[in-house]
């Protein structure tokens, strides 16, 4: 089938990948050209952490997120399987207990266990949780890798729709699709990229806090991504001073070495989300909408892409499809 995909963010590229391997002819339209800072997956943390994420999400996030590790490895070859370390300062250890109660596939660490995993954090925390089977990737590299593979598989990339028609259109535009999906809303996220060669971490670290939870994802070469705020706002634009203060204070609490970091980048965007913060597939005539990945772009796009492809190939109504016509 000839299929046109609107949007070259993580959703569009993942669906294109899934459909290309099934033999469909794909073209991708993105006015800003893929992939880049105009899409919110550009600013993602890239944590493939289904067990951690389900603490504040619905059950499918964990079940379907498990697919993501193999999928990204198969299609980009760039998944780091180092697990996730979850920590809390001494006075917030109640947060750690709650996190442990509400998640599985972890084991508890004492100060010694933490130091063994992350020597630079030695002596800083007395208790933590280790989610050994989780992983992370570098989102921008992963998006580029998908694009490169699609390109070599003959997928056409356009910045405006060509005059030829296609049999099916897949709308994967993220928040821009609000013109067709009125129950989509934006949830603002803000992030920083730091260079801090004096601190070394080999896996994502989550620092729990009642008001300001933080995660730090190492990108290698002394580069770290810090994220991310969650604000019920569709405002994009730059990071606010308050968010900057909070993110950096939390990083400082994790390791004072971050105080000397260079701030390479500050980013903000709005995640597309439906009211239950789960994705949706909607079929309207010859258009299929795939949207609402919220903060789980890299975690859930493989599952949603697979569902979209199965729907196209077999006509089934997959789990996240709430509209068919």
């Amino acid at each position: 089938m000839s299929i046109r995909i609107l949007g070259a963010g993580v959703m569009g590229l993942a669906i294109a990948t899934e459909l290309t391997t099934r033999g469909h002819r794909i073209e991708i339209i993105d006015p800003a050209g893929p992939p880049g800072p105009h899409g919110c997956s550009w600013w993602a943390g890239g944590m493939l952490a289904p067990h951690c994420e389900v603490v504040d999400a619905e059950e499918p996030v964990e079940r379907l997120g498990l697919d993501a590790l193999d999928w990204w490895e198969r299609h980009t070859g760039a998944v780091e399987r180092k697990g996730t370390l979850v920590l809390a300062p001494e006075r917030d250890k109640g947060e750690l207990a709650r996190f442990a109660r509400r998640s599985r596939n972890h084991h508890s660490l004492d100060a010694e266990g933490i130091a063994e995993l992350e020597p630079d954090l030695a002596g800083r925390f007395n208790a933590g949780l280790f989610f050994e089977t989780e992983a992370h990737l570098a989102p921008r590299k992963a998006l580029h890798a998908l694009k490169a593979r699609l390109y070599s598989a003959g997928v056409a990339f356009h910045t405006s729709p060509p005059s030829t028609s296609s049999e099916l259109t897949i709308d994967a535009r993220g928040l821009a699709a609000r013109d067709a999906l009125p129950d989509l809303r934006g949830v603002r996220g803000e992030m920083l990229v730091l260079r801090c060669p004096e601190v070394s971490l080999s896996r994502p670290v989550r620092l729990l806090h009642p008001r300001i939870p933080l995660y730090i994802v190492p990108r290698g070469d002394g580069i770290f991504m810090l994220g991310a705020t969650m604000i019920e706002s569709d405002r994009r634009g730059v990071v606010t001073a308050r968010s900057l203060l909070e993110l950096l204070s939390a990083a400082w609490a994790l390791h004072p070495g971050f105080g000397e970091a260079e701030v390479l980048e500050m980013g903000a965007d709005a995640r597309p989300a439906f009211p239950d913060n789960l994705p949706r597939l909607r079929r309207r005539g010859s258009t299929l909408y795939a949207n609402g990945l919220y903060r789980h772009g890299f975690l859930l796009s493989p599952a949603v892409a697979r569902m979209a492809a199965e729907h196209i190939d077999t006509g089934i109504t997959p789990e996240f499809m709430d509209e068919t016509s």
Partner: protein
Amino acid sequence: MPVFYGTEVESALMLGTAQYSSPAVLAEAFRASKAGIATVSLRREHGGGQAFWELIRGLGTRILPNTAGCHTVKEAVTTAHMAREFFDTDWIKLEVIGHTDSLQPDVFALVEAARILSEDGFKVFPYCTEDLIVCDRLLHAGCAVLMPWGAPIGSGLGINNAYGLRALRAEFPDTTLVVDAGIGLPSHAAQAMELGYDAVLLNTAVAKAGDPAAMARAMALAIEAGREAHRADPMEPRDMAAPSTPVIGKAFLA
């Protein structure tokens, strides 16, 4: 049921809308609790929160916008005006934070902001401490509702100063009083109502519970129980053990 500026509300539970894992979970908690009032913040959204606020409006619950996150009189007044415009209500829950870590209110700025907003026609619900003098000043500034804390926001520590809250109730028998903040468990909420308070405002205890809807329902039940208990005129505690059935004259010797 509690009366706020002449409006009677059907439930003594006021529920916040922050920190839920999704708007769907939030809506479920509201359905389960039948809360009479939903509080909602505007400060951090920078005018981009319309979609979320529409969801809150869709709950069908009376809305009390708040100035959470404001640290100065000017910020709070500006935020109140934004709230009035967007939610089309002159009700405003006034928060002016004085201490970043404990989120303790700056009561001096609070009184000042309450005066400005009251003169401007707002019906102010001030988040305050249980200090009698501060509360008196707030009433003079135009407030007809007082919302003293039970404990710091989000702490879940419950009623930290039952004596102070009782004294406040005794001092202002005709003012609508709400325990706002610090509630962690239904027993805390029941205690607030047993003290004779008109309503309880809480958020984190429900939003961060493993099952927010179940906790919301539990809070509503506890508030109802506490309210009934207060109206029932509870017995005074006493030191002496008192069997509830007279023993004299009863054939208790087997």
